[in-house]
């Protein structure tokens, strides 16, 4: 009797395992196949794609990539890299300074300032859109590189400060005291002691920030609608409208836009997950 129920649960267990395994596999196919389809279509000739959209490409048409590159993607890519690098640098630097000040220096109204900085987390970009456009138009910054740099930095500081601050809170006080005893100024303590100790969270913050900036669409579209200054997400949509029926070129452009972030994700997975976990979990 006992053995019979045992084997029954075992049987149910293996059915369950097979079911779970096939479910996980199907889900992986659902995720991968569209991406594979995108890459394949980027290699097809236009006729090939229109006549047999689901087959493997008959030959690898690298020209699609060349065409996409020459029809604007090179400039979108350059601008995306420029905006991403500079805004990530300024964001992380300002956030690290802010976090240092808020956690390790005795400043007046510390609590109020912390609330103010972190309160920025609650502001949705769409909510501030109209006043920001008016403001940037009045300042003459509309349709310029500076608009994106300022907006991305300003909107990312709360989150990055929050990440770095919670990490700094866990660093022992004795470190600062030891540095002070050795005669280090607060600035030297920050650069030589605290910042190097925060390296793991800084890397996480950089990765999250790069992903955000690289993929941001709303601000990029509204503030650089002029045309000659477009980041990749906005550029791709204009590539799409300009190349009406030459779909493989659009697919090639999409692949070019996706590769850097996918590579970055796989290269930095550990830090990335850590950053997400710290950002959400604390």
């Amino acid at each position: 009797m006992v053995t019979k129920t045992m084997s029954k649960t075992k049987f149910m267990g293996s059915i369950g395992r097979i079911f779970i395994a096939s479910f996980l596999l199907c889900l992986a196919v659902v995720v991968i196949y569209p991406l594979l389809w995108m890459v394949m279509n980027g290699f097809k000739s236009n006729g090939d794609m229109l006549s047999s959209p689901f087959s493997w490409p008959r030959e690898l048409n690298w020209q699609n990539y060349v065409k996409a590159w020459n029809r604007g993607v090179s400039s979108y890519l350059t601008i995306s890299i420029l905006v991403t690098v500079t805004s990530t640098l300024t964001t992380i630097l300002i956030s690290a300074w802010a976090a240092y000040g808020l956690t390790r220096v005795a400043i007046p109204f510390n609590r109020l300032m912390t609330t103010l900085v972190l309160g920025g987390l609650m502001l949705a970009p769409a909510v501030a859109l109209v006043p920001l456009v008016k403001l940037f138009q009045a300042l003459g910054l509309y349709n310029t590189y500076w608009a994106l740099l300022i907006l991305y930095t300003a909107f990312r500081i709360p989150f990055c400060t929050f990440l770095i601050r919670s990490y700094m809170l866990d660093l022992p006080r004795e470190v600062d005291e030891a540095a002070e005893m050795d005669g280090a100024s607060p600035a030297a303590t920050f650069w030589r002691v605290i910042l190097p100790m925060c390296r793991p969270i800084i890397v996480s913050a950089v990765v999250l920030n790069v992903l955000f900036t690289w993929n941001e669409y709303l601000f990029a579209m509204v503030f650089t609608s002029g045309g000659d200054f477009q980041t990749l997400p906005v550029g791709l949509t204009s590539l799409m409208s300009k190349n009406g029926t030459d779909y493989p070129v659009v697919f090639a452009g999409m692949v070019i836009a996706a590769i850097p972030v996918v590579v970055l994700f796989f290269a930095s997975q550990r830090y990335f997950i850590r950053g997400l976990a710290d950002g959400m979990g604390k």
Partner: protein
Amino acid sequence: MMADPVFWTALINNVFYAVVSVIVQVSGALALAAVIEGLRSERLRGILRATYFIPSAISLTVAGLLFYFIYEPELGLLNGLLDSLGLNQLTQAWLGQENTAIWGIIAMSQWQGFGYSTLLFAVAIQRIPSELYDAAAIDGVGGLKKFWTITMPLTREMTGLMMIVTVAGSFQVFNEVMVMTSGGPNNSSQVLGTWLYRSGFVRNDFGYAAAIATVIFVVTIVLALIQLWYGRRRRVEW
């Protein structure tokens, strides 16, 4: 605003977005993360987590354009798949019809986002002391029961947070709708974000755009306050 039918369409679409996203990206992702973390091979767990995450790394613009093509009536993967399964009668212009457009966008958004929340839940599950699961295994507790009695209660904070973040995100949707349909056909897939944009920047009615912004603001700020309250309460408990 109250007399504007498109405003209501947009608001309802945002609500649909929130409901589906909570089902898929909170409950679904939690269950999926529990299944993945229950696997024996650490290597396999890592591969699955990373694979499911890829769509979240590529931008919503790329994902949106990709699905624009997937839903394309002639060339698209979806109609092709239905054809090959012999379900020709189901093929249609997914984004070109008023009753399917928003659902096509919502489905794309789930594809793009579920890996991200699964990853976060996986991290939360990893933080649960493994002794609890070992003890349950010794007592002969089955997988489903472990999920109800250990995983669910001990990831409740993350679940609550994800719920708020997901709903708040659903009310700020913009990118994918803009890329895939621009709110069409006939405004059927407008959401508050795209209707705000259209009102302000296409029809030049900045006042109306600001009014829509206020609605988004109220929704997101209420959710943020709930989140704050939630976080504070948790701190006391710990």
